[in-house]
């Protein structure tokens, strides 16, 4: 599924409106796409991954 599709474009526009960092936007979008069809049971594990993405991004700022 191409990342340059309509969903990505809309996501990028809305994130930019919130002054979010492009690199972090890409990482969060990749996370959303990667886990979009994950089983309910793996959600907590996924959240840890997302939390790490956010924390690492902020720490590197």
């Amino acid at each position: 599924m191409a990342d340059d599709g309509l969903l990505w474009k809309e996501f990028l526009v809305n994130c930019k409106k919130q002054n979010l960092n492009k690199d972090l936007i890409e990482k969060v979008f990749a996370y959303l796409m990667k886990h979009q069809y994950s089983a309910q049971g793996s959600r907590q594990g996924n959240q840890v991954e997302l939390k790490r993405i956010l924390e690492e991004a902020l720490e590197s700022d």
Partner: protein
Amino acid sequence: MRLTYLVLSDIGPFRGRHIFDFSSKDARSGYAFFAKNGRGKTTIYNAMKWALFGKVRRKSKLVDEQVVEGSLRPVVDEDDYDHMMMNYDAWKDDVPQSMSVLFIAEGEFGKLQVERTASCNSMARKDKHLQFSLTVSLNGTSYQGQAAEEEIAKVFPIELERFFFIDGEEVEAYTTMMKSSTQGIIDDIKSILRLPSLTRGIEDLRAIKRTYDDAIEAGAKKQLLDTKKEDKARTLNGQLNMVRKQIQETEEEIQRLQQRQSSFQEQIKGVAELKTYADEKLKVDSQIEMLQNTLKTSLETFIGDFSNAGNILLWNKLEPTYNALAEENDGQQNKRFALDRLKKDRKKVQETIDEFRSVCDKCHQPVLKAELFLKERQVEKDELDKEIKSLEGSGKTNPQQLRAKLTALETFQPNHGSYERLKRSYDFYLSQNKLLLNLKEKQRNLSDHVSEDSAKDINELAQKSARTDQALIKNENTLRDLRFKEDEFETKYKTARPKDSDSDAIDIVYDLRDTIQRFIVAIEGTVKSYSDKATEEVQKEASKVFLQLSNAPAAFSGIRLNKQFKASIYGSNGRPVVGASSGMEVIMTLSIIDALRTVSGLDAPVFFDTPARSLDKDHKNGMLNYFWRDDRSQFLIFAHSGEFTVDEIINEDLAVFNKAWELMWPEDLEMTCIHCWSKDVEHVSKHKNRCNECENITNSHSRQTAVKEVNLHE
């Protein structure tokens, strides 16, 4: 993404192993299976579903315009073996029984190989007797069980099943769902547009935000707690300072007292000799004072005892008279007792004499020695009379007078031991008096060595020194208590004082929460704007496809979807078409499905079972022309003889497919070997033909499917 291989083993009419090779350097997207009913088209379609999702449902039905989902199909079922998925002969004859599907695909993710097997070492009557296994290999990494299911879901999410597997028999149900905008189709459309990824993302972000909210709340609570702690610490610090001040004051007081004490000690040292006398004199003075008190008490005792002295002297004179009278009184009493006893005895003897009879009352015989007995009793009586007379004649004193004399004398009788007590108290008084005289003598002697004033001064000095000693001890105790308190307050103060908080960490938490909140807002905005734009795009794309597939494009403007994805065909006059044909509606549904795949960027094959079921010839041809283009995803159709035939497709110039297969039973092939496809076959017995090339026997009544790839170049 392309399906490259499919291997079926003992499933449906496919006995043994059948390999379908979809790999090709050719860019054409079309693949086809042609067969009459029962030859296994739907089996292949279901085999792929089973390999990917582990379950196959019977076809859903439309009841009162509501779609009722079909029940699960069993792999084996002894009560319904016509509908079970495992090959009947394999189920009946094989030990172990086994059914498996191998599905291999390639795409951006790499190479995905899925192998699902159902097996049983004995006779499985129901699915519960089977063992199911799943192995997934993705780019050489193997996964089993749940992990394997998750790897498949990344490439073929079950939510998008309707967009990979399209069943011609169910297209009518899809159409109804799209026309009425039922929840099922809304969910499916949202899934393919990947809206759940956004809503899940929001949920994930909110869950993470809650942890930061909690951390911030905990930080706020800590701050409040810290303020309270600071207040407490301040109070404790005040108390600590106060104690420290008291310690300082006490230490100064102790120092002052020590100086004072050392001054007293110096002075006492100077009058050391005098102090000995002064101490002795003080001691004697004290003894005299005490003795004088004792002497006063002993004199009072002696005077008390002396009050009996007159009686003691008088009794010395009266006591002999009293004793004589007492003795006489005792004699009188003894005589009275003796007289009473004698008179009783005499009376008894007299009664014996009076009552005696010389003849027995019972036997009336004379009593032996009766006279002698009476005589002896008489003598006894005479002796008693004599004694009584003798006692009555002696002692003439009146007993009452004697008693009165004794009583009168007893008034002068002193208490028992009065004399001894008087003597003892007198002796004690004398000894104390003597001791007092001695001490007074000693006092006089000491007064010669130390004057009264000097003794007083020395005494005062000693008293001051003692008092200073006492004050020192008291202050030292106070100092010790204060130091304990100081230690206690210091510890409490250190504990109560809040620790320095990590302000950087708190700032990061605030930043993270803020970032998450901004992402939540952004995703919520994306859901809205993307939903609108995606719907618009889908509508545009679906209309384009619809007009291409339609046999009368000029009559339509396209397809419209409302916000609930309710679909309608619009005419060229800009109004919704009323009473559209079922073929048109099926084309509408296919157009929307294809548009959704395009807009969402879904790159996956389409497996279409009985695709032309509700279509007329023009629509059928239009569909194949559209979907079997070089630039599209793989498009596999499973067509029965009423829809398409190989000859028809070739003759209509529709043979743009990449590969095609025919599925046949022996009865479909007159005098052809189903093993090597040779026509050099001879009839050997009823329903049995032997191939002269491969020498295999074919049972013409067998319902095991044979697969023959269509040679498109012939």
